[in-house]
């Protein structure tokens, strides 16, 4: 069976706004957003360095265009689900910076009460569905969320983010096939930063990313995630098509990770040469690209930019202060929310701490 492939990449062109039907005001909002993500992640980086954040911490720096461009076109009722590199996606979906940072700090005020941490940010109110740590694990979950949308005959969509390495997981294949045969309202987004930890995508695939959905008959497209306007326009159209019953979509969003895989991983190393990282960082920063466009078109000047940036830094700092001032979870929290329903009969907990006459 044949399938659409929008092989031609959207975006990347120099001019800007009309082409994508993005107003200057909206463009400025997107810049404001991306600045927030950047400053937020830099704060997290700082906090990790001084031990306020523990465990694994995967920064999104360099990939902000993907979060802003793909999530901002969505409605609050739409769902977003992601992997462990999800801080800025949470912010984009409307989770407040304070609770996100507090979650990284492992505080009671965190989005997940401090129990989830950096990899497991959840916010039911804005339908941010996590934050999942098993590579590819969120893809079947997203398909189930899409199943619920269709089951309840809602007109929402679910956007599922994954990294380029996740497409080699069997669950990806199984989930996309089911989304296709049941025409579910899901948009599967590969944040293609070309590396899974130290493994270049080309070492684990003979084909281009856009081929990965072909056996399922899911329309696939590719967009430059460093061009937030192109990305925004692309997702605005995709969301519309999916919302109106067009079935699932697969999107290869080309981007680049400006930092190491996690805090313990050097920015550049054996697996990607310094000059590659430098070139990407200098030439393909989504924030710089949009800034220049706005400058050129005269919608923004240096003073305006600095105002926006000051605002972003302040928000990031406020988030850090909020986290700092928040308490650790109470000891009781250790045992809460293991079960949604404590059955009146029988024993559910077996660590014997206190339970038996012998403890």
């Amino acid at each position, binding site marked *: 069976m044949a399938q659409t492939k929008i092989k031609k990449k959207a975006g990347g062109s120099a001019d800007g706004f009309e082409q994508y039907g993005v107003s200057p005001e909206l463009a400025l909002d997107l810049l404001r957003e991306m600045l927030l993500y950047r400053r937020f992640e830099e704060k997290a980086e700082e906090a990790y360095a001084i031990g306020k954040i523990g465990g694994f911490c995967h920064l999104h720096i360099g990939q902000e265009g993907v979060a802003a461009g793909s999530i901002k076109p969505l409605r609050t009722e739409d769902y977003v689900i992601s992997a462990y590199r999800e801080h800025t996606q949470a912010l984009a979906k409307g989770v407040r910076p304070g609770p996100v940072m507090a979650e990284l700090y492992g505080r009671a005020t965190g989005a997940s009460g401090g129990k989830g941490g950096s990899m497991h940010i959840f916010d039911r109110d804005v339908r941010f569905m996590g*934050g999942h740590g098993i590579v590819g694990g969120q893809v079947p979950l997203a398909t189930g969320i899409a199943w619920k949308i269709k089951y309840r005959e809602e007109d929402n969509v679910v956007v599922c983010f994954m990294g380029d390495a996740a497409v080699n997981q069997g669950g990806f294949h199984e989930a996309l096939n089911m989304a296709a045969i049941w025409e579910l309202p899901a948009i599967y987004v590969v944040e293609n930063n070309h590396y899974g930890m130290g493994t270049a995508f080309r070492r684990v695939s003979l084909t281009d990313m856009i081929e990965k959905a072909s056996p399922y008959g899911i329309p696939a497209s590719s967009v430059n995630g460093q061009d937030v306007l192109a990305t925004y326009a692309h997702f605005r159209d995709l969301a519309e098509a999916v919302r109106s019953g067009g079935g699932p979509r697969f999107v290869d969003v080309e981007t680049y990770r400006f930092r190491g895989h996690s805090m313990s991983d050097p920015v550049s190393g054996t697996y990607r040469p310094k000059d590659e990282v430098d070139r990407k960082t200098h030439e393909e920063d989504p924030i710089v690209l949009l800034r220049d466009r706005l400058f050129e078109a005269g919608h923004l000047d240096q003073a305006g930019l600095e105002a926006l940036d000051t605002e972003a830094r302040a928000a990031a700092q406020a988030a850090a202060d909020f986290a700092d001032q928040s308490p650790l979870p109470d000891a009781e929290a250790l045992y809460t929310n293991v079960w949604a329903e404590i059955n009146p009969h*029988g024993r559910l907990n*077996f660590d014997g701490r206190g339970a038996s006459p012998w403890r």
Partner: protein
Amino acid sequence: MAVMTYREALNAALREEMQRDPEVFLMGEEVAEYDGAYKVSKGLLAQFGPRRVVDSPISELGFTGLCVGASMAGLRPVVEFMTFNFAFLAIDQVINSAAKMLYMSDGQFPMPIVFRGPTGAALQLSAQHSIACETYYVHSPGVKVVTPATPADAKGLLKASIRDNDPVAFMEGELLYNFKGEVPDDQDFVIPLGVADLKREGSDVSIITHGKMVHVALQAAAKLEKVGIGADVLDLRTLRPLDVDAILASVRKTNRAVYVEEGWSYVGVGAQIVAIIQEEAFDDLDAPVLRVAQADVPMPYAKNLESMAKPSADRVVEACNRVLYRGAR
């Protein structure tokens, strides 16, 4: 009261709960057009349609994860595994997603979902189709485990499991599907999770067990009675929550216990029951608690080897004699 098979009891439970709650749906291989590999879902497609009774591709990890996601979003899925042997492909979504979602989100996402299907051996299905899978599910907090042995328990416990707001691994048995028994017709006949059932009473020894082995234990108890030994046969019915009080009450009465389980005993459910008994009824025990289980080998195909591998009433009788210090040690 109506007499029906275990299969019909499960079918009735699914039907009633799907009628009662439009958020309940059934997904699995062959559950719809084929009426179920073991016909447990017979007639449900006709009654509820393809939206609520769904044939999946052979994609255990995928459709399990799909249902976990649907539960996260507010539906109440029932996942049918053709057998739990095939669920090794899907267990990541049970243990890493379903069992942890509520905790990782600190209460934001209750996960009402039932994973059901046969566990353990049938007849000559060989090594890859005969594993008793209880240990793999009961070890992890966040998953409840239910193992009905009779039609009435199957119906009452499946209804309770579907109404429960936590993930439930509901483990049936191919060899139980044709088993007949009385079942209350009451639409609200629900057996609460966590209540063991004393299937037979006796004062000399406690035979404690779950699932299919309840019937082996009852045969053993009948044999023991012939030689004047009275055995309690305590069917745990649910392995998490666990009715510890019922276990202790029986052991405090008989001072002797044997656990019978279908699968491998090494780090099996029986080991845990033994640990609880010796910890909480240490002074009541007149003998060690023994376990009767499958031979510690993959299940062989040959008829004679398979029947040797399975736990038998005779082995249970023998174990009871040991804990009663009857016959050679």
